[in-house]
């Protein structure tokens, strides 16, 4: 998206300073912005910006509730093996094509002869097929939980990869300027030119053909790391530009000059002086990055360019389920609802984090 108006995503000022770095705290902030509560309360003198932000976030009950919902989803995902081994008594990739279960004294095929799988049973079958079966007779509830593990693992890991790489590139480009900046910025321009989904698809198809072999380490074509790396990589453009813009203005500040006068090296200035000042930007972006990564994983897997079967993820489950939409709608409804809930919880929580840390930030990631 080369045509984005320059500066629309950039921060003009350092937004938040760590209290351990006195040079950066008060002078650059507009006092009314930082010290006044959004509701127009009294200035709270002598409180650090992080504590203020924390207080503001704590007051936002809706955001907190959705943040808690996300944590709950992660915990549920982590407990997948517990449910699988002790309640449902089956694995995520175990077929039960010819099984017969007894419900209210009635015998039922898990998958009917015409290929239609059994619908949600609730607790009628002693914890088996709580959410029904798919066309291979696999337990949807078990797959949903293992799928949650994969979807959330990819979403969170990919966002960490994005954050690390984007901050590194943004720091390099913004700090050194000149040809380093030119190379990085033009590279990002070219990545921007690709629609995110198409770039993800292109990489997903070409990498799942034969995996990745870089000599030192190699990844199988069906490994979870392939979608993770792809999603981490395509997300960089979202974050690297705002970071670069912020570094460009931060590097002119007095505290950087002071560090330089003390003889600090470039690397020390970048990682000890500038990096702490970028933390709030990273925090503001992170929940939305995860939301976006989870959505992109689902879209890629839905199209067959992400997580490879039989490994479950919400996207692959949707892709398989949609073929049976008419006869077994639960295969579509259930994973999509989980996906929506996850992305919604991250979006609402992300909104709250942004309002608490920096209400002016324009965080907008495209799908």
């Amino acid at each position, binding site marked *: *998206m*080369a*045509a*984005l*108006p*320059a500066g629309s995503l950039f921060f003009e000022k350092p937004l938040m300073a760590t209290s351990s770095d006195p040079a950066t705290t008060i002078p650059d902030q507009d006092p009314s912005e930082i010290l006044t509560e959004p509701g127009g309360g009294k200035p709270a003198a002598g409180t650090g910006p992080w504590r203020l932000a924390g207080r503001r976030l704590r007051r936002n009950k809706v955001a907190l509730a959705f943040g808690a919902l996300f944590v709950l989803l992660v915990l549920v995902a982590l407990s997948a093996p517990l449910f699988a081994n002790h309640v449902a008594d089956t694995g995520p990739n175990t077929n039960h094509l010819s099984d017969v279960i007894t419900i209210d004294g009635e015998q039922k095929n898990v998958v009917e002869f015409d290929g239609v799988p059994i619908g949600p049973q609730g607790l009628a079958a002693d914890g088996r097929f709580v959410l029904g079966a798919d066309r291979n007779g696999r337990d949807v509830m078990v797959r949903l939980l293992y799928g949650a593990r994969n979807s959330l693992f990819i979403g969170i890991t990919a966002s960490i990869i994005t954050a690390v790489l984007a901050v590194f590139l943004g720091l390099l480009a913004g700090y050194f300027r000149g040809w380093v900046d030119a190379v990085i910025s*033009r590279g990002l*321009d*070219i990545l921007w*030119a*690709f*629609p*995110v*989904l*198409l*770039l993800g*698809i*292109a*990489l*997903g*198809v*070409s*990498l*799942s*053909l*034969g*995996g*990745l*072999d870089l000599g030192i380490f190699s990844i199988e*074509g069906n490994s979870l790391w392939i979608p993770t790396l792809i999603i981490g990589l395509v997300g960089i453009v979202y974050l690297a530009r705002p970071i670069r813009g912020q570094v460009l203005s931060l590097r002119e500040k007095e505290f950087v000059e002071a560090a330089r006068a003390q003889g600090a090296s470039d690397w020390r200035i970048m990682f000890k002086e500038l990096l702490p000042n970028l933390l709030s930007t990273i925090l503001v972006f992170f929940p939305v990055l995860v*939301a976006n990564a989870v*959505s992109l994983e*689902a*879209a890629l897997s*839905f*199209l*067959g*360019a992400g997580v490879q079967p039989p490994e479950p993820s919400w996207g692959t489950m*949707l892709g398989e389920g*949609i073929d049976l*939409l*008419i006869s077994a*709608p639960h295969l*579509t*409804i259930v994973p*999509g609802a989980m*996906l*929506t809930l996850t*992305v*919604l919880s991250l*979006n*609402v929580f992300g*909104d709250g984090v942004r309002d608490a840390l920096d209400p002016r930030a324009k965080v*907008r990631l*495209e*799908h």
Partner: protein
Amino acid sequence: MVTFVIRRLVAMVFVLFMVSVLTFLIFNVIPNSDPAVQMAGKNVTPQVVEQIRKEWGFDQNIVVQYGKTMQKVFTGELISYNNRVNVVEEIKRGAPRTFSLAIGAALTWLVIGVALGLFTAVRAGKWSDSLVTVLALIGISMPVFWLGALASYYLGYKAGIFPNGGYETFSEGGIGGWVQHLILPWVVLATLFIGVYSRVVRSSVLDTINDDYVRTARAKGLSERRVLVKHVLRNSLIPVVTLWGLDFSLAIGGGAILTETVFDLQGIGQYLAESIRRLDVPPVLAITLFGAFFIVIFNTLIDIVYAFLDPRIRLQ
């Protein structure tokens, strides 16, 4: 102005070239597999593989291969590996369907998004404002293919209000049939953007509604409706117009692909989805390339149009 246009065009040509190189590299250097082996299928002699490799030019220098691939893409001679169909013909067949979907959706989200944004801004703080804000967030968070599946199941299959997927051209069903088959996909694809736009318009209207010139308009006795539409909305729409062009190209390269697949519209996106399942490289390469080219060219045109409209942009 002329320098601005020339500068943008030169930058565009550079980006287009790099995009084509990167796309080529993604499909011809990254894969850790041999296309000739893939095409030959199972149980073949090495001679057959060697022959395919020669025939398709996989043994040539990488630069030559790049040139040949680009030539094939742009002269419309690119052939699929799997079923030996002409890829460019397939894309041309799907293009009107994809564009019908995207253009209709773009109009839908513009109209509904602006209306909702204005409505919520005027009622800021009331329960209807909160309700729309919550719905907008849910709309933003729903995967478009899931929403599409639910819509086609409940409104198409169960209620029978809409056709059960598929596409009708003008000649098949007239304009009525065309609209009838597209209306659900339009709304589904538009939902995400309706959520985004209503929030953008809401905050933009709230920013302007207290400006002095709005107070002046009220003071001179204009009706509230006229103040809102002629004075507030007009200025609040500037950020929306800027976003709209960009989002249109995003919808083409993103949501449209997924929406089409769900509604069986048989456009470019569905062709892409089918090619991914077959791991058929040429269609994926061509669609990625065309998609990125479309976006780069479209965005450059938008830039130039904006520069005409707003002289400040030229000076940046």
